[in-house]
């Protein structure tokens, strides 16, 4: 089957029911998308299908055929997406393992709601972070939404 991932066509020979997560990680060697729970609970595996956040551990690869798949590797060149810049400026990640998924969820949120309220963030950002970076995620999303990024220096 053929998949369109980050604007590139990739050809795979895998079972149709294989979750997109494992096709990305093991077959295509795209390791930015993470395995956390396998039951769509934690969101570490979040990717976009046509811009919508999807938990790829529970999304069959065959359902992605003919769709635009975007992974953490495809949201910007040189980590330049305002969400990525804000994540660094506000020193959001701790262990970082959930952050690909958090960033994918945040990018999708901003696309839908360019100026999200705290309530919007609460309902859109349901991914688990065991390190407890939630407060910084919230601050960084607001900063990116307000265009308040790329000004702070280390």
């Amino acid at each position: 089957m053929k998949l369109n991932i980050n604007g590139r066509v990739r050809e795979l020979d895998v079972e149709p029911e294989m979750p997109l997560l494992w096709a990305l990680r093991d077959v295509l060697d795209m390791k930015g998308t993470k395995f956390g729970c396998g039951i769509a609970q934690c969101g570490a595996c979040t990717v976009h299908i046509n811009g919508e956040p999807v938990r790829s551990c529970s999304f069959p690869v065959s359902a992605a055929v003919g769709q635009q798949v975007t992974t953490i590797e495809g949201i910007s060149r040189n980590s330049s997406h305002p969400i990525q810049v804000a994540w660094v400026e506000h020193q959001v990640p701790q262990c970082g393992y959930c952050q690909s998924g958090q960033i994918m969820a945040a990018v999708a949120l901003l696309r839908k709601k360019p100026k999200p309220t705290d309530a919007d963030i609460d309902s859109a950002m349901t991914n688990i972070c065991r390190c407890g970076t939630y407060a910084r995620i919230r601050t960084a999303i607001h900063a990116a939404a307000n265009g308040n990024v790329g000004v702070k220096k280390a």
Partner: protein
Amino acid sequence: MKNTSFKKARREFLVTTAGAGGGLALGFHLPSAFAQKTGTVEKADVNIWVAVNSDDTVVIKYARSEMGQGSMTSAPQLIAEELDADWKKVQIEYADTNQHVRMKRAWGNMASVGSQTIRTSQDYMRKAGASARAMLVAAAANEWKVPAAEITVSNGIIMHAGSKKRTTFGKMASAASKLGAPKEVVLKDSKDWKIAGKSMRRIDIPASTNGTQRYGVDTQLPGMVYAAINASPVFGGKVKSFDDSRVKSRRGIIKVLSIDGNAVVVVADNYWRAKEALKDVPVEWDVGANGNVSSASILEFFKEGLKMPDVPVLPNKKGDIDQAFAGATKVLEAEFVTPYLCHAPMEPMGATVHIQEGRVDAWASTQNGEAQLAGVANALGVPPESVYFHKTQAGGGFGRRSGPDFIRQAALIAKALPAGTPVKMLWTREEDTQHDFYRPHAMYKLKAGIDASGMPVGWYTRIASGSLFNQFAGLPLKDGIDGPATEGFAEFPYEVPNQKHEYVQRRTHVPIGFWRTVGWSQTPFAREQFVDELAQATGKDTYEYRRELLKNEKRPLGILNAVAKAAGWGKPLPAGVFRGIATTEPYGSFTAAVVEISVDNAGAIKIHRVVQAIDCGYVVNPDNIVAQLQGSTAFALTAAMWGEITIKDGRVEQTNFDTYRMLRMREMPKVEVVLAPTGGFWGGVGEPGQAPFIPALCNAIFAATGKRVRSLPLKNQGFTLA
């Protein structure tokens, strides 16, 4: 470590690299990556912690692990500070575990447990930085023929004012690396710090925002195969038989096997194929008597522990408690229970092992590179010197990754495959939840007698808990007492003239181990609530009562005052809002918390405010400490509300995040962090924030509802989180 041992270590390092055939000259080699880039950059190891490239970049070695606690940035800040390096030109690399073994543990302890990286290695790391600086200065002094004492260093630039000469670290590194280390170095006063003490951005963060960060589970090697594992669901159980007939001929399946007699493994050309096939391999287990154990039977066993006569007494016994209780105006008693908890780091356990002739390479997310290396060597029966363990960023640790259990499995699987086949073993979340080394379960019995003034004249503690030192680390108990289980009572800070604290080990078949803030995550739940009960019994303000009890304890009193001041203790709160306070002394630091909550009629707790204060002596990276206290609050709140591992038929009942609940964004309270360093000592920061939070929350619950929380989690006591 003394500086003389640097010299020795460095000598061994030179011998080793020369022996390996990699050295071009004494201590020099051309790292291929740089050589390819520029063709000319030379790297000089000034000592084992500091290397300088001829392009002036400085490579600082980091000996522990990075799992989000930030030490991979803050520890090198201390070295760079003493070196007077240009922080913008500093690169940080893990110290090589194999060299470490060959050099007789030259980098010291590699473990990231117990919030100890800074506090137990600051001395030798800072001396390494200062020593390297002195060698670079000596090289310049030799070349310029001026006294070293007249040379100054700033931002990686070496200067001599008198002759107006200046040079760089890169130009002096080659000569410096050939000099001996100085016998003595003088370390800076913290008030002169320019790199340490500042919120330097964490070096590992950019990679965590663009998918390039590589964790243990991201290891990928040519020809690698994948393994999924199903270990006995009952701890201690054995594989009687398994049936692979349904999966043997499936696409991608390479091998089905049993390892260590207690686990069944499917190896495939893809992880998903392996884990799906494993579901269709029925296993018959021999679980023995452990199959009859339940949470209820364990609780009974712990309750017996509270009643047993003549159990070990902690050395801080004072006076005569029986007499004190006999003469007391009032005697209070209370029991508290804390459950087993799992770690649930976001990255499940996993490891990759590649066995080749005379050499084994292994990769895993770990908190202890040495333990992993030894685990591989033991599993395969090969010398440690032949094992190359590669550290990666760890996707959370919280104590789970301190032992070698999972890497042993990967090594045994690799051994069962055709020679030279690299294999990556990965656990499912369910395997992870059910095969942990759990935060110990504990019971506490407390008793105190107060006199007419309301102050305690006698305090008795009985702790019944597992011993992780004995059960996890295999160490004999000293005088029958476990360290982590007695944290908070062993160095009891409150002034009580008669006191006696006892510990009785309760060993069950449930594996226990380190956990973020292990003992300190539970002992304050009992101690700090009981202090509140004493204050309530005498009608005194709980903060003022603590102040009286801590009047001769400078730092515990200091942090208590700091948190109370920041929280505005004593000032009126909005109607329906109540506050609780607690103070603790964990991991060489002092922490205190105030939590403000309201509770509705249905038991829904709304957290209005959290104030966390820490005195860790010296602040190396302020923003990172704030992050650690924010994270510790989330970790503690998760445990307080929902954390519970229960046992039925000998096995863990919880499986995944749907049955082991995690805090989410909408539930995260705002945390105000107060940094109140008093200097003169070095305390930990990764764990101490957890210690005071749960009792402060429970004391607020009592203030709000009149209900004293005797047992966790709160979900079992009729509470939810609003």
